[in-house]
Each structure stands twice: as structure tokens, then as C-alpha cells.
């Protein structure tokens, strides 16, 4: 199977997934009942009338975990090409990755000491 063949399969599956959801939604629109009544479109807050703003601010810790995830995600991306090739590479390439993981472990250690890994 050629390269373009494989990736056009990905593209077709993408379109197929969108069509699948789209037909389901349109089918429900055609089959399901619809009544024009305003009360049911109030957002659900356990049966009470909604209070305050609809959107609340989220806490800063979500941002902190997102940025830590981003750093570690980039790290795992560097490990991917290494993981499939490291047996055939010279030994300094192996030690580069050990060093790399250790540096990032230092970052994790710093975060632990600064108590940012706690959810509070």
C-alpha cells in the first residue's frame, strides 16, 4: 500500500465519521418530536433556576497542569524516534536520551518540591 493510499484512508475515515454524526443528528431532527416551549431551554442546575453568570472562571491550576502536560508531551515526542532506533545507534545517542530524561525528571522534582503537583 502506498503512502498516499494510507493517508487518503485517514481522510476518508475523517469524512465518514463526520457523515455518521451528521446523519444521526439529521435523522433525529426528522424523527424526533419538537415542541416550541421556552421553559425547557433553561440550563439545568438541579431543578433550581440558574443563578449568576452562565460561565464561571476556572481555576489557575488547570492552566498549570496543561502547561506541564505540554512540556512532557514534547518530551515524549522526542522519545518516539529514539525508541524505535536506539538499538542501532551509537552509545552516545543512548546516553543523550538518558540525560534528557534526567533533566526533565529534575523539572518534575522541582515541581514536586514547589508543591504544584498537589491539586488545591
Amino acid at each position: 500500500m502506498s503512502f498516499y493510499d494510507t493517508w487518503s484512508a485517514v481522510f476518508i475515515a475523517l469524512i465518514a465519521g463526520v457523515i455518521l454524526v451528521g446523519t444521526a443528528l439529521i435523522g433525529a431532527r426528522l424523527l424526533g418530536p419538537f415542541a416550541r416551549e421556552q421553559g425547557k431551554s433553561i440550563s439545568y442546575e438541579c431543578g433550581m433556576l440558574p443563578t449568576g453568570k452562565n460561565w464561571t472562571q476556572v481555576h489557575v491550576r488547570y492552566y498549570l497542569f496543561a502547561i506541564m502536560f505540554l512540556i512532557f508531551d514534547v518530551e515524549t515526542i522526542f522519545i518516539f524516534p529514539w525508541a524505535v532506533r536506539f538499538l542501532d545507534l551509537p552509545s552516545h545517542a543512548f546516553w543523550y536520551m538518558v540525560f534528557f530524561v534526567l533533566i526533565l525528571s529534575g523539572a518534575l522534582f522541582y515541581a514536586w518540591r514547589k508543591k504544584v503537583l498537589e491539586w488545591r
Partner: protein
Amino acid sequence: MITEILWWFFAIAIVGTAAGVVFSRSVVHAAIFLILSLAGVGGLYIFLTVEFVALVQFLIYGGAVTVLILLALMMTRLDATGAPDKLTGPQAPFGALVGITLLLTLVGVSLATAWPGDVDDLPTNITIEQIGDVMFTSYGAPFIIASALLLVAFIGAIVFAKQEDEV
């Protein structure tokens, strides 16, 4: 031929969604357009037969960075139904200056670069093995420097966003 049609489809989609980023009133809508635009750029990497880089684009920009952006936006006092904030202010001339400089730089660079011409001249299907070989033999030092960069970014983010201990 078919790849050319698909290429144009992706190119138009990228430009269209990028325009959506600029023109949408809600910042969250802009962020979602940004995801589509960045994922489209990932599609362009596939036309260049570097599937690893394309998937990195999907993973880092489509997944991680946009989740970061969305969470950062939700941290602010935004309201999707409220009136949009005033878009111009005293920063407008500086913004225009930066924008025009960036535009001129990009146009200048793209005109000055000697493009390799036809895509068919490129080696076909650059595999992850080739990328790994080159990265860990020829570019070992930049790789280690990248780890230091990641470390600095990590510590910087913690210093900025860390909550002070409650007394």
C-alpha cells in the same frame, strides 16, 4: 492530480479557518478555528510525505497547545453571550506596526527563498527511523539544548502560575 485537488482543498481550508480566527468575536470560537487551521497545516505535512511531523503537528498543536489556550481563556472572565469587548484602543497603532512588520518579513522571506521547485523532487516518505538517525547522531547537541529549553519553560511556567502558600 488528485493530490493537487486535495492540496488546494487543504490550503483553502487553512486560510479560511485562519480568517475565522481573526474575524470571530468570541475568543473561544477563535481558538476552535485555530485548532482547525493547525490541523490543516498537519495535513500539508502529509503532502510533503513527512507523516511523523504531521502527527506531531496534530498532537502538539491540535491537542496540547489548543487545550492550553482553551484552559487559559476559560481562566479569564469571558462570557460567550455578552457584548464583545472594544476591539480598538491606544494599542491599535502598535498592533498595526507589529502586524505590518510581520507581514513584510514573511512576504520578503518567501520571495527571497530559493524554493526547491517541484514536490516530486523530494525524497519519498521520510520515515521516523530516518528522523531518529539524524536527530540523535548529527543533532545531538541541539537536542540536549532543547531539553534545557524545556526545563526553563517548565520552571518559568511554575514560577508564574504557582499559587502562594496560604498562611
